[in-house]
């Protein structure tokens, strides 16, 4: 109990879950600091849901250890349940019941007496913009409303750790933004959020740290900035006026930026990655400086540039780069 205050929100070592011949989670090592959003990023089938279910005491690990605020998820499962909440990948609200009934049910199960349970339900429905739909059956809710009700149900007990398993998968952009705002509001209150996602920009927008997982184990871990700088600080896109100058432009870029240059399908376009020093999450000054130096060298060489852009590498590029590598161990920054 003493260690609970200082222990990380989640700590796993060598966590394993096997289904038949599938090693769904295969030696997962995670440390999630308390008080922020932690992103678990991985493609379909990477083992995200299985890992979350073990941490939420729903599945028993086959090997390894997992602790939540210092409590063992197997031996102290009941104590862990008092601290966590789960919004599963598939709606964990009752479709046949109304929004109000779903929340009252949970409030009662958490020990609220009838009038406070009713008040709590109304308060949550209001905060999540569901008052108008309070007395409709959940099966008539849109995907976004259902997801909001699900999250409302999860924070009813003010959990110290909230698991959100792919909370925006299948939502339209507006609903997705609402969920993002909710997550930001929740974490401000001191609740740690473990967010799994397949969307790289989602982890980028919300998470303080990200673990990239594939085949049931972590292949890279760090802040979004660290992950990006591990494959470069930015990407330069150029369009020339004269396709005949492309070879010259390629030579200049390769010399100035000291990286391989990619010739795009469009005969006037070139792309190159800029390696930065990777110290900042925001666009790297080093990268911008290098790019502008490249531009002036191109002008000096008499090459006419019609269009120029410098972008951050997307986490998509990070993910592809990481999973392409034959030795994933050195992928992390």
């Amino acid at each position, binding site marked *: 109990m003493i260690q609970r205050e200082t222990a990380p929100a989640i700590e796993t070592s060598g966590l394993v879950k096997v289904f038949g011949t599938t090693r769904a989670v295969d030696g997962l090592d995670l440390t999630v600091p308390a008080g922020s959003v932690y992103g678990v990023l991985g493609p379909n089938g990477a083992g995200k849901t299985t890992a979350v279910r073990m941490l939420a005491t729903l599945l028993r690990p086959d090997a390894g250890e997992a602790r939540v605020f210092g409590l063992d998820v197997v031996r102290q499962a009941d104590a862990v349940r008092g601290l966590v909440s789960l919004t599963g990948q598939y709606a*964990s609200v009752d479709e046949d*019941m109304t929004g109000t009934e779903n929340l009252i*049910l949970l409030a009662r199960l958490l020990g609220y007496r009838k009038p*406070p349970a009713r008040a709590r339900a109304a308060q949550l429905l209001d905060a999540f913009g569901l008052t108008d739909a309070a007395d409709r059956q959940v099966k008539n809710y849109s995907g976004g409303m259902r997801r909001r009700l699900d999250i409302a149900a999860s924070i009813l007990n003010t959990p110290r750790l909230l698991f959100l398993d792919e909370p925006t998968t299948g939502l339209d952009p507006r609903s997705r933004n609402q969920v993002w705002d909710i997550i930001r509001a929740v974490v401000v209150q001191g609740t740690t959020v473990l967010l799994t996602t397949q969307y790289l920009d989602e982890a980028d927008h919300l998470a303080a740290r990200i673990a990239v997982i594939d085949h049931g184990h972590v292949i890279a871990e760090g802040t979004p900035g660290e992950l990006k700088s591990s494959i470069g600080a930015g990407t330069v896109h150029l369009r020339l006026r004269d396709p005949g100058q492309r070879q010259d432009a390629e030579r200049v870029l390769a010399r100035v930026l000291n990286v391989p240059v990619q010739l795009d399908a469009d005969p006037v376009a070139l792309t190159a990655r800029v390696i930065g020093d990777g110290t900042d999450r925001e666009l790297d000054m080093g990268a911008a400086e290098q790019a502008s130096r490249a531009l002036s060298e191109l002008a000096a060489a008499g090459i006419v540039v019609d269009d120029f852009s410098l972008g951050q590498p997307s986490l998509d590029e990070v993910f592809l780069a990481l999973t392409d590598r034959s030795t994933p161990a050195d992928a992390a920054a």
Partner: protein
Amino acid sequence: MSATTENLAPAVPYVPAAETIGAVMAPGERPPRPSALSASITFGWRAMLKIKHVPEQLFDVTAFPIMMTLMFTYLFGGALAGSTGAYLQYLLPGIMVMSVVMTTMYTGVAVNTDIAKGVFDRFRTLPIWRPAALVGNLLGDLLRYVLASTTIIIVGLIMGFRPSGGILGVLAGVALLVVFSFAFSWIWTMFGLFLRSEKSVMGVSMLFQFPLTFLSNVFVEPTTMPGWLQAFVDVNPITHLVTAVRALMAGTWDTGEITWVLISCVVMTAIFGTLTMRLYNRK
């Protein structure tokens, strides 16, 4: 689906406000954990709500028994007992047992549906007495059993069933049947927990329940059956239940059979209740 969704969409799109969400998350006073009983009753309330919202599910427990009673009385009555009226006195307690026991599979189907929909995941992450969700379902079951029994008795009375045990005898018979059904339903809860779909739960339960209910004394006395079949009928708990319920409704008290039934209830609950809880915790 999409039409109703459209209607529900508010005119002004919802914008989450950090303050209001912060307010609902403010760590106010945490209520104490509910007791095992209180958690079970809450789940019972849920079972009632589900019946209120999906009343169609009661169709099976009313229409099916009526059909069975009518069918078997008029089909076998003349041949087996000389007249449908005479046969009804014999058949009705048996057909009631058969129909109610057959509805026990809905317990397993309900559990299976809850799991498939992910609702149970939420319940299983709550720090509550673990069997509460399953025990609470018994309350919904109770409603089903009582409804099915009442339907059959009313249809029987209309058709000419005259139990000499009177109201008390009939109530005692129904009570024994309900107790047995509770114990028996653990079997389907267990199957509901590990079978893949509600269809397979229904399939398996039909596979067990048809022989179990037909190879008994529901329709005829086993005296004309071949010896090997009589041996099965004699150990079939349904046979003992039917004998006991028949006696109660006829105004006699068959202590031997009642004891037999109650012991089988304890045994079934001990075995299948335990297995079910183990599966539920392991899942």
